[in-house]
């Protein structure tokens, strides 16, 4: 991992809306704010996780990073350059730096093309290599992801799902990118195959010094791979935390609920206690308030304070690299919700973040003044 320095990728108050034509609304379509004022920064060489339930906007963030979608507001900066307005050659150059691995290994490969052709694409598009050279590099890629070069002339359907995902990774690597966005690359795989792909990603990240944005709803996979994690809920960042902080002292009631919902491999141990009610799609979040308020256990315990409904909590830093978007996250002792025994956390000792400093907020001017005083009950 690289040391402290300028972030490689910054998301600056990024917003993405869907829908909204008057005719569509007339027919009953709603405007969806899939990503709502998200600010993140990711350092070079880091593995950054994005978790959240279905519909929380993870994929949308990922697609905006690789410029498959444009934000409706905000900026995305790669090495300081705003990529949201790149066109033509500049965009093509950007594509060499940032790649994507997709969720579904069956759908992300063109069933009508041989693996070789798909892998050669990058060299042809970017004029990186041709002829024997290109062939050599394609073969090397195959070996890098643990496949044999003899498989190059096969069609996708002749591979197992794990192998296909490896091909997807090989394709992403073919332009030698600096950053890879992996959108749920293992969710569609069997557990044992998942492990193989996770290992591969981790190995690549370390060996090649890749920056990885790893999108998943699986906290286990995220915590295995990523040193920092952002938790999204209905398009907003709830919490950004280093791995240890996430596992040991998640601050946001939603993150706690997520952790508490994870079944454990130790028989008869976990999920008997209700840590979250309802469904992400159940209730409309209050306009202007906290999107998580309707399901929030903490809020209920605090006697349903109005503030949650009227004022949007902006991310604020709890400790270095750990930010939370909750008015009351540290307001009480949380005897029940603190699922992690203090002892275990303490035993591990205070963590020194190995990651570069990063807080969810890079533009303090846009953070409401309330944040600083919000820490009081």
């Amino acid at each position, binding site marked *: 991992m690289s040391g402290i320095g300028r972030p490689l990728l910054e998301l600056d108050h990024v917003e993405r809306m869907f829908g909204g034509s008057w*005719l569509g609304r*007339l*027919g*009953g*379509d709603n405007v969806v704010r899939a990503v709502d004022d998200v600010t993140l920064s990711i350092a070079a060489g880091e593995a950054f996780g994005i978790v959240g339930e279905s519909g929380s906007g993870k994929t949308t963030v990922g697609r905006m990073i690789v410029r498959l979608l444009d934000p409706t507001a905000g900026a995305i900066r790669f090495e300081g350059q705003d990529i949201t307005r790149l066109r033509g050659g500049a965009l093509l150059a950007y594509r060499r730096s940032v790649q994507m691995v997709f969720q579904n290994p069956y759908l992300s490969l063109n069933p009508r093309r041989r693996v070789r052709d798909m892998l050669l694409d990058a060299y042809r598009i970017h004029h990186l290599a041709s002829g024997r050279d290109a062939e050599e590099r394609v073969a090397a890629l195959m070996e890098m992801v643990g496949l044999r070069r003899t498989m190059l002339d096969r069609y996708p359907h002749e591979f197992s799902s794990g192998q296909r995902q490896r091909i997807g990774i090989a394709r992403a690597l073919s332009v030698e990118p600096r950053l890879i966005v992996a959108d749920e690359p293992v969710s569609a795989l069997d557990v044992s195959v998942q492990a193989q792909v996770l290992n591969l990603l981790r190995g690549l990240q370390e060996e090649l010094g890749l920056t990885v944005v790893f999108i998943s709803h699986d906290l286990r996979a995220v915590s295995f791979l990523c040193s920092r994690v952002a938790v999204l809920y209905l398009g907003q960042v709830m919490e950004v935390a280093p791995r240890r902080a996430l596992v040991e002292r998640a601050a946001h009631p939603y993150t706690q609920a997520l952790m508490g919902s994870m079944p454990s491999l130790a028989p008869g141990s976990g999920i008997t206690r209700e840590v979250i009610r309802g469904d992400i799609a159940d209730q409309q979040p209050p306009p202007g308030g906290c999107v998580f308020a309707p399901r929030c256990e903490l809020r209920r315990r605090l006697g349903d304070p109005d503030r949650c409904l009227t004022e949007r909590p902006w991310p604020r830093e709890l400790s270095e690299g750990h930010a939370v978007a909750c008015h009351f996250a540290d307001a009480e002792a949380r005897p029940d919700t603190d699922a992690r025994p203090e002892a275990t956390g303490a035993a591990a000792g205070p963590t020194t973040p190995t990651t570069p400093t990063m807080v969810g907020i890079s533009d303090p001017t846009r953070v409401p003044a309330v944040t600083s005083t919000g820490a009081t009950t």
Partner: protein
Amino acid sequence: MARYALQRILLALPLLFGLSLLVFFYVRIIPGDPVTAMLGVQANPDLVARLRAQYGFDEPILDQYLMWLGNVLQGDFGISFRSRQAVAPIIVDRIPATLQLMLGGLFVSLVVAIPFGIRAGMKYRQRSDTVISTITLVGLGSPGFWLGTILMVIFALVLKWLPSQGYTPFTQDPVASIRYMILPSVAIGLVGAPFLVRVVRSTVVEIMKEPFVPYADARGLREQVIFWRYIIRNLLPQFVVVLGVLVGALLAGSVAIEALFNWPGMGRIFIGAVTERDYAMIQALILVYGVIFVVINLIAEIAQAALDPRIRLK
């Protein structure tokens, strides 16, 4: 639902506007001078003048269009230069006959296609499916007028059960009217039926593949419940949309059938107008056919939404 219907209706409006443009420009793309194309070189100068005035060919194109559209909106499609009668009333007189034939054809198509289509779909790739599908394919290749000719020879001329041609308005004499419409309806309906059988069959096959069907089995639901509530109920929304399309096919098919059975519908004037190059008539007819088709499809779409809550309240 109402919002959805409103949206569909609003979406149909530009279509109607476009249709009017299409029809308007139709005579203006006739190679050469349209009036000459219609009347010939040595035409009666009176008529030439009248037609020129009717189309206003010398005005700027926008004025021409506005004038024409204004007239059309008031129900004035100009005069048919062959008969020198106003076009609109002639067509209005024919709409009932064409609609009646279309409904008759639709009825025959439905009666034939629904049971067979559903049966073939439910017995996908089994013997009865094979038999039905083969017959369907044969039907698909049978031109309507050819079937009609054979039907006419058998039932009207040899067996003398039904009249070979003619028409009586339903309001005038329902029994006679139905006697007249049987042969043409069957001829046209049998052309629509194979198309419908195929759609119904493949829709049923798709429905049978949906997980809710085996799940309904797993719940031990009665077979009638599964049939009506699961298969038929899910077939309906798609079915009404297909009916919209089928109506188009029937309208098109009615042209030849009307000619064959001397059925005084729009199809007959259409063919007459085409052979006589009576462009005012052709314009009006294309517009009327288009509007009928658009309206029916609109109804079908709205009906689909009414039958399928997913569309209605997306």
